[in-house]
């Protein structure tokens, strides 16, 4: 019954695997490639670090040439390079998983020839390379063939193995007409044949887009990333001013400042930690989505997911299981409950619908399992009689059990609508009011009672919606049900609002209305008629099994086609923002300790009185500076796992979340470097590095 557990085994695509030594090796190599200053221009903090590293290297070379003391300078220069490399490595590692996934996707690209139908009348086929197919052309795909490009089935029905895209190996049915007519290039037809009209050029297919997405080829900075980059650039400038002006202030005070040390101070003060990890956090966010089998077209969409205010959820499949289930039997007056149960089960023995099975399940739970009597005949449901059941013998002989629409069963029992027993009518009313469906049961034309069929709300959704509410999200249930039924289910599931008897136009209107109030809206959909709403919403999750139009309109595609996924997507978005904020706070808070390490070291020779500021009691000015630089570099490496994994998201409300994270990353950010620099200083001074 669960829809979430459908995908377990990853197929050929192998999206979102873990790190292999080979991937780390590739990342390490990429870290050096990224040293190219042109590649670092987009990251002012790391760019500045590289410039200082270059200057420090030159100064070291000059010192060696002049036979000066170069050991200290060399170490500083090397650690500055290490800082840049660590930052590059963080980004490379983050990209690594996407690249690996892209490689395996590329392997599934079609290389065989497609069967192009050049003349629809005669059905003449010309084998054509897949990359030469144009939009609008029609190809024949038979059992065993790979679908050459994305398209729409115009004729035929086939089972298609989509493992290459979704990782799910069980084949799905694709047929012409309706919402299941889209096929994806790279998938394989397992049985039968279909004629497909090509809808996308080579290079622009779903597979191509998917490769581009996982690879992050056109990764653009998200709005928040841009704002953060501006902040970091501003801070870099502020510290540049603070350090450069020290030349003048120091000269006045009679302090000779070693440019190498000033450079080290500058690098320690600018936010290298977040500067080095910023892009890794963004890539890792998309990667985490990939892990739950969701493809985002842009980082912007992931970020928007964290900002979502209103979540539109389809009732069926998301909030309820989608099938009505029997939950209760109410016997008519004068009928013993056990007789009612027996009649109900007998009437349902031949019913293979989910409703029927749920009735048998209810019996089993109450300890009663019945076999059909020998020679019994199953009476199937018909639109005419609006009931189904079982006859004990052939041709209407023997006992007859029926269940069906209340008025139909009453009519059979010879009762006019007003003549039904009061208790029975009351029960029927109550069931209808609560949003359920009443089914009447009769034995041999005698009314026995009523079955309560209910749209059962999935377990845990209520708690999940409560979590969302704590995080400030409003949930709106969308359903085609009438308002009474919708209200009952809405209140049971604990959603904030519902839209009953909803048409696609209503959905679109609701989204526009919410957006008009400045809210961001997320939704999922699969039908072609969902496309406008998907396009309008800020986070539109299209189901991979859905119509081509829907997949084009959304900015995310769920490969598992699981509508509950939208909740996870929101959580991943939030986690990405939290991680970014936590690392920024940590990075900026680090500065306090670094000042106390470097400032006394900088001035203490000329002004011994300032030794009083050496609160950490670092061994010597040189070891203090080197320790601060080493800490600054190592902290990037130390935080890579956090940047990739993300700070744990807890649905505890903004105030508590802030309090917690401020304590850990703000206060922790102030304290950690005091401890770290002191420890490094102990090591540096004891093994005699300076």
């Amino acid at each position, binding site marked *: 019954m669960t829809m979430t557990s459908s995908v377990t085994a990853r197929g050929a695509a192998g999206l979102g695997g873990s790190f292999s030594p080979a991937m780390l090796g590739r990342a390490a190599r990429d870290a050096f490639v990224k040293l190219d200053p042109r590649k670092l221009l987009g990251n002012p903090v790391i760019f500045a670090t590289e410039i200082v590293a270059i200057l420090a290297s030159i100064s070291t070379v000059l010192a060696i040439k002049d036979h000066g003391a170069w050991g200290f300078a060399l170490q500083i220069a090397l650690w500055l390079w290490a800082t840049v490399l660590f930052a590059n490595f963080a980004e490379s590692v983050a990209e690594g998983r996407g690249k690996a996934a892209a490689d395996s996707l590329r392997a599934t690209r079609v290389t065989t020839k497609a069967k192009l139908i050049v003349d629809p009348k005669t059905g003449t086929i010309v084998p054509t390379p897949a990359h030469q197919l144009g939009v609008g052309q029609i190809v024949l795909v038979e059992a065993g063939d790979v679908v050459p490009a994305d398209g729409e089935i115009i004729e035929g029905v086939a089972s298609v193995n989509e493992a290459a895209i979704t990782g799910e190996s069980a084949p799905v049915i694709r047929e012409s007409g309706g919402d299941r007519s889209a096929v994806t290039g790279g998938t394989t037809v397992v049985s039968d044949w279909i004629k497909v009209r090509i809808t996308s050029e080579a290079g622009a297919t779903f597979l191509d887009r998917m490769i581009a997405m996982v690879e992050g080829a056109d990764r653009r900075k998200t709005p928040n990333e841009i704002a953060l980059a501006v902040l970091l650039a501003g801070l870099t400038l502020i510290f540049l001013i603070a350090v450069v002006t020290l030349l003048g202030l120091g000269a*006045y005070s009679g302090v000779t400042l070693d440019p190498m040390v000033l450079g080290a101070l500058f690098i320690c003060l600018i936010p290298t930690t977040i500067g080095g990890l910023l892009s890794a956090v963004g890539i890792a966010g998309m990667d985490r989505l990939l892990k739950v089998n969701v493809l985002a077209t842009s980082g912007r969409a992931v970020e928007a997911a964290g900002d979502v205010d209103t979540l539109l959820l389809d009732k069926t499949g998301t909030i309820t299981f989608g099938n009505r289930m029997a939950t209760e039997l109410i016997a008519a007056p004068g009928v013993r409950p056990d007789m009612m149960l027996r009649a109900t089960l007998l009437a349902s023995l031949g019913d293979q619908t989910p409703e029927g099975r749920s009735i048998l399940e209810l019996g089993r739970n109450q300890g009663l399992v019945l076999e059909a009597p020998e020679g019994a005949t199953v009476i199937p449901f018909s639109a005419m009689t609006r009931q189904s059941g079982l006859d004990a013998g052939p041709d209407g002989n023997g006992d007859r059990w029926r269940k069906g629409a209340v008025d139909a069963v009453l009519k059979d029992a010879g009762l006019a609508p007003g003549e039904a027993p009061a208790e029975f009518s009351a029960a029927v009313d109550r069931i209808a009011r609560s949003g359920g469906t009443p089914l009447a049961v009769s034995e041999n034309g005698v009314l026995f009672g009523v079955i309560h069929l209910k749209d059962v709300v999935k377990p845990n959704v209520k708690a999940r919606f409560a979590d969302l509410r704590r995080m400030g999200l409003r949930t709106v249930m969308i359903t085609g049900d009438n308002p009474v039924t919708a209200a009952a289910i809405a209140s049971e599931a604990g959603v904030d609002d519902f839209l009953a008897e909803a048409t696609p136009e209503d959905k679109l209107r609701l989204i526009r209305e919410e957006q008009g109030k400045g809210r961001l809206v997320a939704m999922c959909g699969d039908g072609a008629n969902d496309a406008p709403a998907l396009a309008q919403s800020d986070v539109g999750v299209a189901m991979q099994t859905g119509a081509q139009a829907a997949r084009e309109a959304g900015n995310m595609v769920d490969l598992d086609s699981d509508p509950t996924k939208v909740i996870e997507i929101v959580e991943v978005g939030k986690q990405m*923002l939290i991680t970014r904020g936590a690392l920024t706070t940590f990075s900026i808070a680090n500065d306090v300790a670094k000042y106390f390490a470097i400032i006394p070291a900088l001035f203490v020779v000329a002004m011994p009185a300032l030794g009083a500021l050496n609160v950490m009691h670092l061994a010597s000015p040189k070891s203090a500076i080197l320790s601060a630089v080493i800490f600054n570099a190592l902290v990037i490496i130390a935080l890579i796992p956090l940047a990739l994994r993300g700070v744990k998201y807890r649905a505890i409300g903004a105030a508590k979340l802030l309090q917690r994270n401020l304590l850990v990353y703000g206060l922790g950010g102030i304290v950690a470097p005091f401890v770290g620099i002191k420890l490094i200083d102990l090591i540096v001074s004891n093994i005699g590095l300076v």
Partner: protein
Amino acid sequence: MNPQGWAEIVLTIAVTVGLAWPLGLYMARVWKGERTWLDPVLKPVERLIYAGCGVKPDAFAAKGGQGWLAYAMSFLAFSIASFVILYLTLRFQNLLPLNPQGFAGLSPDLAFNTSVSFITNTNWQAYVPETTLSTFSQMAGLTSHNFLSAAAGIALAAAVARAFAANRSENLGDFWVDLTRISLYILLPFSIVIALAYVALGEPQTLIANVTAHTLEGAKQTIALFPTASQEAIKQFGTNGGGIFNANSAHPFENPNAITNLIEIISMNVLSYACVVAFGRIVLAAKEARALVAVMAIFVLGASAAIYATETQRAPALAAAHADASVNMEGKEVRFGAPSTAVWAANTTGASDGGVNGMHDSFMPLGGGVAMFMIQLGEMLPGGVGSGLYGMVVMALIAVFVAGLMVGRTPEYLGKKVEAREIKYAMLAVLILPLAILGFSGVAAVLPVALKGLANPGAHGLSEILYAYSSATGNNGSAFAGLSANTPWWNTTLGIAMLLGRFAYAVPVLAIAGSLAAKPKLGATTGTFPTDGPLFIGLLIGVILIMGGLQFFPALALGPIVEHFQALHAVAAR
């Protein structure tokens, strides 16, 4: 240190904040253009001014206000015109009436410096007023700008408040209407009341220039008088700080007794706090405004305590010499003592006022350092009238942005999303402080022409340089005495620092306001970053210290901090 001293400090701050509340609520009515109890008297005057200036009287209504650019242009145009007129007035005061002492016109650089100083609400005074300025220059030139520069600052605060209240609107109000209403309904009436109180308490208010006194020793002494009380009122109420006498509020005519001292301290902060209260009223965010006030008051309290603590120490050298000096009384008025001087110093440096009742130069090194640090933090604690509010809002935006992501949403402040555009302008504004303060100090510290003006060598001399540029950039105007600043170098560079501190900060702030106003106003949810509780107060304090203050730490280490340790060492070595 004693309980009376602490009580004085705490009570002074508490009374100031308490009085700010009703004043702020009244001010909100003025900003909104609503009826006030002064309407019967002032409405006709207001109409007359609009008619005379061609301002459309209904311009501040919901429609027809200015966008941020128009508002900024009006502000700049007004300031430029003010500068030109004031410059000419000072330069040619010898040709103008009311010059009983027959003072000459000011030199070009001094006229530049002084004009900039007064149009930027700084009131840095590179001259000895009683021997330099004519009564006309004082009254028509400077005092009028004490009102107008203050009103312009408050007008910007009103525009920022409207930006947060707006929902997808361009309208920030009308600068000319704001300027008129704030001057008429707030600055003028309160200044008149305060001035009358000062007169009653013994401050001179006369057009007679001097009286001549014959002392007991038989010497002849010329004592300058001036219309002191009226200037004193707006000097403090508008966070101007420019005294009519060189000794400022340490002068017995400017500040004769403990009562005037108390009124002056309160009046130099109350309007800045009131701007925050009015902001909270306009934006419908009283709790959030209260948090901002709390941050301001905590800083002032902390700085007062720190200065009180340092100034009740014995100077190490005196202690070592076994001199009878229980408290560092150098540079303090015996009438006021250490606690009153401490709370004044914290208030005046926190508030961008710059009036002094003691000489910061003579404080203990750390005491003077604290005063300097308060200015460097950006003059928002509680800052100048209006400018304190928008400075604090800029820091709040940065704080919300840095830490706000940690709740997993694009940060919002008061229902407005904080995005790249706001951060860009906020950083641009914040950048001005280190750029002007450290930039000019770094150059002046090695420039012989600048160093000629220093009275003290060593670390204390560096403190004087740092203090001067901090004071100018922060539009504070108080001075570490000891710097002879009336030279072309100092007049020019300090003038530029004042211009940067005012306009290079205010224009980005208005740009932020324009951007915020155009955004939809969002409702708060449980997912919204809370900006009213102790957590936010703590966060904002941290951000102001770490992001607004830490960059000055290396410079301060070479100035007041090293001086402090050197003093201890010198004594220890003896």
